[in-house]
């Protein structure tokens, strides 16, 4: 009896000791605001203290880069005197609460530089126009600036390129000054291929060697004309109306054709269309090729073109929705011509709408619609996927292999006979596969350790290409302290860009100050203000705005503080 109590007591004591040890650690790690000792601080009103920042960073499992970079940013902000509560979030909840609901303080995201973002409509209009600041809109920071809005509208609706360009330059200047959601850095992407077996590798903007142009141009050096493509993840869904991931969409672009394609630099080139005729601001007449057939032998006609756009609207395709919503109607106006009527002038119509909407075979999809209904069509796996493109769907064994073969009757023939795409599930397996010669091409970014590993095989060549997207911190101008432009500027100057690049990316990155990549020469403004890492300048910025620090280094608002949301002229 007695002894059992002894053991129990022992255990309890041990437990309490441990939990107290644990608790002190928890407390230490979150650094509670010391509200109990106002008396000690030098007469600063505790109500004036700058509120703590809840900073969401990606989980380590999802993206080690964002996780490590996030920790470094949080540390640096603390040094300025801000209170930072760094929390990791899964992407699923971060996107729902931040990207969509805009309930964040600040979080870090990597925005991809897709070809359709070369026309910077997404970066400059969608992400910063005040109309997109409501829930679900892309103006995640809640940037509201009437001057900017006017420029953005000019940029979006004026069909004159020069006018658009000059608006874009000015908009970039405003953004660099007001920093609603500063870009920080971007990767220097490295794709690998086997140069003993293939040549003429043609990476495209934003996609690297996963680009359509690479699959069209890559040329075998040997008799083995099958291209073994290794990727980390598998294809998920080949339904053009319902697919969501880039890996699927860009693979579908090999099977299906759009009216216009974006070339390696992201500029629109005619594809199924042979002629674009802008009749007025809202009417575009398009002539299409008459020699294209779907893979089942049926010819591709204007009927299919009209059908695609009408059908996408009718079944409410989530993938097409954003692209087709500017279209009022599509009419067949000739044997090979269709006329698009838009609700209002939309400058990126050709580069962003026509290039993204893949033309579907009417005979297949109208039949599917009869059988399955609107919802059924969107949940359909669409196998085998029948398009009109240069590659024909061959077979797909999920998690093992996905194969395309060349369309022999196509108007422009690829140099290879087939693509076999293998998902490796993990980068390390992929790297080993490359070294062993199992795969000859991958668009997975090679990290420093991967490069060391592939160096073992002298046949592996590396293509370097700049990333067109960047890592961004989305501030939230709807909440303090991000509502004040001086606080935002100071916080931006406390982002240790170069240190992150050196430590986390092992040197494989570049600091960025505009959302538009400097390789995108037409739109990029090189002369914007660069709020690079400089803690002294950051302190100065705060000091000049009247911010104060107590003797523990904690940051307080100026006396009689008035929020300045954007820089006064």
């Amino acid at each position, binding site marked *: 009896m007695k*002894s059992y109590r002894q053991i129990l007591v022992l255990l309890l004591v041990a*437990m309490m000791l441990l939990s107290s*040890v644990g608790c002190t650690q928890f407390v230490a790690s979150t650094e509670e605001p010391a509200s109990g000792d106002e008396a000690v601080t030098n007469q600063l009103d505790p109500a004036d203290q700058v509120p703590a920042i809840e900073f969401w960073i990606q*989980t*380590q499992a999802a993206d080690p880069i964002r996780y490590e970079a996030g920790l470094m940013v949080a540390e640096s902000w603390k040094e300025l005197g801000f209170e930072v509560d760094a929390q990791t979030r899964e992407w699923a909840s971060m996107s729902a609460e931040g990207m969509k609901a805009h309930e964040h303080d600040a979080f870090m995201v990597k925005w991809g530089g897709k070809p359709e973002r070369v026309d910077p409509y997404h970066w400059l209009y969608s992400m910063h126009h005040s109309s997109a600041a409501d829930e679900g809109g892309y103006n995640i920071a809640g940037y509201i600036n009437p001057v900017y809005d006017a420029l953005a509208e000019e940029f979006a609706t004026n069909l004159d390129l020069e006018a658009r360009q000059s608006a874009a330059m000015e908009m970039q200047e405003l953004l660099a000054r007001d920093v609603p959601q500063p870009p920080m850095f971007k990767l220097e992407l490295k794709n690998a291929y086997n140069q003993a077996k293939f040549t003429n590798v043609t990476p495209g903007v934003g996609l690297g060697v996963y680009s359509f142009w690479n699959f069209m141009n890559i040329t075998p050096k040997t008799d083995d004309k099958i291209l073994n493509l290794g990727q980390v993840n598998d294809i998920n869904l080949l339904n053009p109306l319902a697919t969501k991931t880039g890996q699927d969409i860009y693979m579908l672009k090999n099977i299906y054709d759009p009216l216009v394609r974006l070339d390696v630099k992201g500029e629109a080139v005619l594809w199924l269309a042979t002629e674009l005729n802008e009749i007025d601001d809202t009417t575009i007449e398009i002539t299409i090729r008459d020699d294209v057939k779907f893979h089942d032998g049926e010819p591709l006609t204007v009927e299919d073109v009209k059908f695609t756009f009408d059908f996408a609207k009718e079944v409410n395709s989530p993938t097409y929705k954003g692209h087709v919503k500017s279209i009022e109607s599509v009419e067949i106006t000739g044997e090979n011509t269709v006329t698009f009527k838009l609700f209002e002038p939309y400058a990126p119509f050709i580069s962003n709408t026509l290039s993204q909407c893949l033309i579907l075979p009417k005979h297949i999809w109208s039949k599917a619609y009869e059988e399955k209904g609107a919802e059924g069509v969107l949940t359909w796996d669409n196998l085998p996927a029948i398009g009109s493109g240069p590659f024909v769907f061959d077979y797909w064994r999920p998690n093992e292999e996905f194969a395309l073969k060349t369309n022999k009757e196509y108007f422009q023939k690829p140099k290879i006979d087939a693509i076999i795409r293998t998902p490796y599930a993990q980068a*390390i397996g992929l790297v080993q596969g490359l070294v062993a010669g199992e795969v000859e091409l991958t668009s997975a970014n090679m990290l420093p*350790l991967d490069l060391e590993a592939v160096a073992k095989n002298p046949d592996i060549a590396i293509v370097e290409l700049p990333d067109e997207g960047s890592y961004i911190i989305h501030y939230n101008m709807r909440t303090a302290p991000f509502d004040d432009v001086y606080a935002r500027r100071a916080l931006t100057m406390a982002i240790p860009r170069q240190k992150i690049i050196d*430590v986390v990316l092992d040197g494989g990155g570049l600091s960025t100050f505009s959302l538009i990549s400097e390789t995108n020469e037409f739109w990029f403004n090189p002369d914007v203000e660069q709020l690079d890492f400089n803690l002294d300048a950051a302190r100065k910025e705060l000091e000049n705005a009247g911010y104060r620090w107590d003797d523990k280094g904690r940051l307080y608002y100026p006396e009689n503080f008035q929020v300045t949301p954007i820089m006064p002229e």
Partner: protein
Amino acid sequence: MKNIFKLFKKNIIGIIGLSIFMFFVLVAIFADQLAPYDPMEIQFFAEGGVKRLLSPSMGHLLGTTYMGRDIFSQMVIGTRIAVLVGVISAVCVAFIGTNIGLIAGYFGGIVERILMGIVDVMYGIPFLPFALILVSVLGPGVQNVILAIVLITWRNSSRVIRAQVLSLKNRTFIEAAKLSGASDFRILYKHIAPNVVPVSLIYVSTSMASAIMSESSISFLGLGDPMQVSWGRILFTCYQSQAMFKAPWWVLPPGIAITLLVLSGYMMGRAFEEIANPKLRER
């Protein structure tokens, strides 16, 4: 009732287990003093480069990680989470499991049916997938990992405790207590409970072992507390960084530590088993 403490002292396996356990407890308590560096701090060379993947040396006893963090310090600080999770979950599991077993066994009838029904259902829940979802719901954090462990593992002890109670219920001393007008509560906790303590202690020790294993598994899947260093997370980071083939000094220590601490739990459990079941002692 035999003297558990004395018996335990005679049990070599138990003593070894306890010593290993106490060693880790001491490391956990004095972790701050023992760790030469902040486990999350990135170490730089004097000339500025990151100390990536250094093999063990005097400066870094167990070498460094790819991000230049000191592995020895991570190991030492990581002990805290392991011991904390182990002990708290074990005590909670044994407490809940024992009480449910006691109540079900003693009262019988509808109470027993409901409680044992719940236990049956719990047995159908696969632990790791459940923990995965639960941690996703509640967010990563040590307390949630403990909660997940406790929610599932209490089932193990309650069945056995109930069986024990059933065999005790009709013994004469219980009958005597009943006749003398003792309340149910008193009989349950004064007369029956002390007799199931050895069995309960088996579950304290083995639950501790399985809780430590579970915590490291959850951390290895990347769902542990992201702001705390734990052994499972060291292994996760190592696996994820693709450096695991190059840096044995990074892979080996956390695994060995987990093995030892888990082992200590099972060894103590075995000792209590021999105490609880005299038949085993003769072998």
